[in-house]
């Protein structure tokens, strides 16, 4: 090889080194970019509190409230307590509640049954599949797999958040210790905008995420609160968990959380307000004379709203579900969304009367949705059921 050839070889080698170095630098940069893209958003250890906004004794007075709450202690002690009752009870009463009724579980016991595998296995037997299962990323909760599993995606997690338990709250799984944060991690990563029942996931994120920083789901989709809100508003009004009423609650929580953490874009916020105002208007128009709502609460039927349908055992359940959930939602709703007071008063008084007339067996069977009724009435008195448990001891 002559001198020119040597120079050429050197230049060639130099070009190769530069190219390889460039490729390595690009690869490293992209690797970091990918890692950042796939990282989860910052979370707050303690869930955000969304306190009730109103206190109206015309909706339910002290005596009525005490009577309703007295009918709804979590009498769930015994073998095989259903998970959907346990998580509703924890959300209703909170983790610190204690009752004189020996059949009623304390808040701490309920939390243990949900979050401690040893307590769960003791109640359900060792052969039952565990409720909490460590997954590839985080901690998975078994869903829709019988009474020993959660009834909705992320329902246990949202219950825990609404009950005020922090992310570092210990969780015991069959394979060792974890925390609630691991449950949230799994939820965030496996969330899909198009999943069945996104309501409870949305609620958890509104309560725990500190900012509107997007994250990427397992499907590769970038998730933002705007998209979550749009997803919630996409279904027909009465579709969804509990006849679509959880969606209204979630959107209101999103609005309230947005006031503190700026989770939504102004356009999306405006859309949510309009959507909820529309829902309120439909509810006001479709309320039955007695004060309740039924499955046609979106005012989509041509029958006159004042027409009273004959209340049967079958129809009572959806009436209680919808009326309880709607009052619970309105208790958190800002003024611009709230209905006329007469609507709320009529609904509250109907709930008081109906629950008062219910037999213990009926209460036991409908405990999950009656917990919403009790919570709704308490919220309309400006506080949580646990507070009234302490301040209305005669009813305990």
């Amino acid at each position, binding site marked *: 090889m002559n001198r020119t050839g040597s120079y050429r070889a050197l230049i060639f080698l130099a070009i190769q080194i530069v190219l390889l170095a460039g490729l390595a630098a690009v690869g490293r940069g992209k690797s970091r970019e990918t890692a950042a893209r796939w990282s989860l958003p910052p979370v707050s250890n303690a869930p955000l509190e969304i306190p009730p906004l109103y206190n109206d004794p015309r909706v339910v007075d002290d005596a009525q409230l005490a009577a309703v709450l007295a009918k709804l202690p979590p009498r769930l002690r015994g073998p095989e307590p259903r998970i959907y009752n346990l998580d509703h009870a924890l959300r209703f009463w909170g983790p610190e509640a204690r009752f004189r009724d020996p059949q009623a579980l304390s808040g701490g016991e309920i939390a243990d049954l949900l979050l401690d595998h040893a307590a769960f296995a003791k109640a359900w037997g060792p052969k039952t599949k565990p409720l909490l299962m460590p997954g590839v990323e985080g901690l998975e909760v078994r869903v829709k797999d019988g009474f020993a599993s959660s009834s909705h995606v992320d329902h246990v997690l949202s219950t825990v958040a609404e009950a005020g338990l922090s992310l570092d709250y210990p969780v015991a799984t069959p394979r060792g210790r974890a925390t609630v944060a691991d449950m949230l991690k799994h939820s965030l990563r496996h969330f899909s*905008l198009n999943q069945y029942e996104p309501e409870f996931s949305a609620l958890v994120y509104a309560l725990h995420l500190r900012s509107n920083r997007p994250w990427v789901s397992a499907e590769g989709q970038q998730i933002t609160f705007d*998209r979550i809100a749009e997803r919630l508003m996409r279904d027909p009004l009465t579709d969804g968990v509990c006849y679509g009423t959880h969606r209204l609650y979630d959107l209101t929580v999103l609005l309230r959380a947005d006031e503190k953490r700026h989770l939504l874009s102004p356009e999306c916020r405006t859309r949510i307000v309009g959507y909820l105002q529309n829902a309120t208007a439909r509810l006001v128009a479709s309320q039955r004379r007695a004060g309740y709502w039924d499955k046609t609460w979106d*005012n989509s039927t041509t029958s006159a709203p004042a027409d009273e349908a004959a209340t049967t055992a079958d129809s009572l359940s959806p009436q209680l579900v919808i009326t309880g959930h709607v009052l619970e939602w309105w208790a958190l709703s800002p003024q611009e969304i709230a*209905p006329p007071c007469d609507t709320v008063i009529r609904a509250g008084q109907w709930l008081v009367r109906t629950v008062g007339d219910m037999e213990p067996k009926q209460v036991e069977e409908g405990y999950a949705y009656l917990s919403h009724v009790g919570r709704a009435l308490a919220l309309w008195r400006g506080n949580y059921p646990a507070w009234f448990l302490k301040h209305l001891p005669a009813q305990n």
Partner: protein
Amino acid sequence: MSLPIGAERQPCVTPALMPVLSTRWALAWRHMGVVAGFCGLFLLFDLLPLDDSRVWLNVRHGRYIVEHHALPVADPVQPLAEGMPFVATGWLAQVALALADAAGGPQQVANLLAAFGLLGALLLARAFYLRSGRLSLALAGLAIALLAACSTLSPGCPELTGITCFATLLWLAAKVQRLDAEPDCDTDRPSRTMWLVWPAVAVLFATWANLHNSFFVGIALLACLAIGRLVEVSVAERSVVRALGNRSAQRWILLAEGALLATLVNPYGVNLWLDGLGMQWQELLASSGDGLSVSSFPGMMFLLSLAALAVVFRYSRRRVQPAEVAILAAFGAAVVVTGHAVPWYGIAFVFAISPHVGHMLEARRGHATPSEPHRSFAASLACLLAIWCAFAFSPASQSLLGRERSGSNPGLYRAFPWGVAEYLRAHPPQGLVFAPTRWTNGFAWACPAEMGFVMTSDADHVPRRVRIDCDSVVRVRPGWEQLLRKYNVDTLVIDKQRHPDLAATVRRPERWNIGYEDDAALVVRAARAAPQVCPIQGGCCDEHRPGSTSAPVRRGRTSL
């Protein structure tokens, strides 16, 4: 007229007609045959309906780019794809198609694609000619390449632009290989052709990267040529280090690297590579299950090519070059993994073996030099006539010659439900439209931009859950109506032949209203009563507020 008395009649002398043009322009009659063949090919490309519906989706995407003067950040046709990674690979082709569509509708799109197809065919023929040295072999090779392409691709497919770029690359590679074959190829003074090849390759790959994501095929071909040349020189020099100093080996390596760098000239930079590799990987995963079936036409073509390869390598006295082995191995492996690689393999196969076939024929003929064909300007004029006839008969001349053509949108694919498109235009749905993806692509082109569809043929752009749910709907699985409500679908377009169960199930007036029906398609709208909307009559919030008997419980961190 009478002559004067005594005058003699003089013979009339007319000058002989002498051509002013150089004899270079005189063609042989066999050239006329070739020109007529290419004219026929253009007519075929231009008249065939564009059966690949993706072309209309590309037009729609291109329309978005033209209207917004920006690349879309999410799929503009599939609202459910919002938030999913989206790279507009082929945006340049999409813009070109959209401009053609704006200029003259589907026919202009077909004209553009026909021009692309013709250019690709010409370049392929030229590349094969440079490799084999024979016109007949070049045309035979082109026929094989077209057959391979037609085995898996439809007219108007987006891959057409990529294949044209690939043909250009093969032509350039054949030119460079000719330079390599020259005795002074390793001199320090590069030829003028080589100086032109460098920018040509750079421009080609920069364009290719913006036209279609198949540019990786070109990189693979250059890599095979570079590796092959390096091996060849290493064997000759008995040293890899020395081979690295060889000018020809360096040239191929640098060409491959330069081509790779040129592909970075795109709006997405390196992300285009990552997206392209991701798509290739997904395609591999998707096709790895079924692979190339031996009983299929592409599979039989592949087996035939292997048999032909064995015969050619057995009887060819030309030394098999490492680059040819590398090309056949790489593209053959690609075919084994995915049937989508058949067109590329077919072209690369002809490129690799054509010199050997040429050599075989030459050896058979002996040393007798072929007679130079008789050239005449009559043949040249006949060629021009053929070109004019092809142009005049093709729809491409419509705008120039001003003829009215019967039938609307002759370029659109067969079995496109025009009636449904017109119905959707007349009755725009409020929610999303669920339709077979093949039809959705056409609807995206034919319907207003505001109309959203659940899924087009770009199914990989939407989340996996959507794809699973769409499958459940067409199979009428339990809860399929709830799935549609979940996606806010209020219009369902059903292919009656392909989804008869779904077509039968939706004929329920309480749930669905039939909006349109013909022999092939059924359109139903969700039977939802329009709910009455009532304004809120006053508020009571201020009434509720006062007299709070208890402050909300402040719950801090709770740890039991």
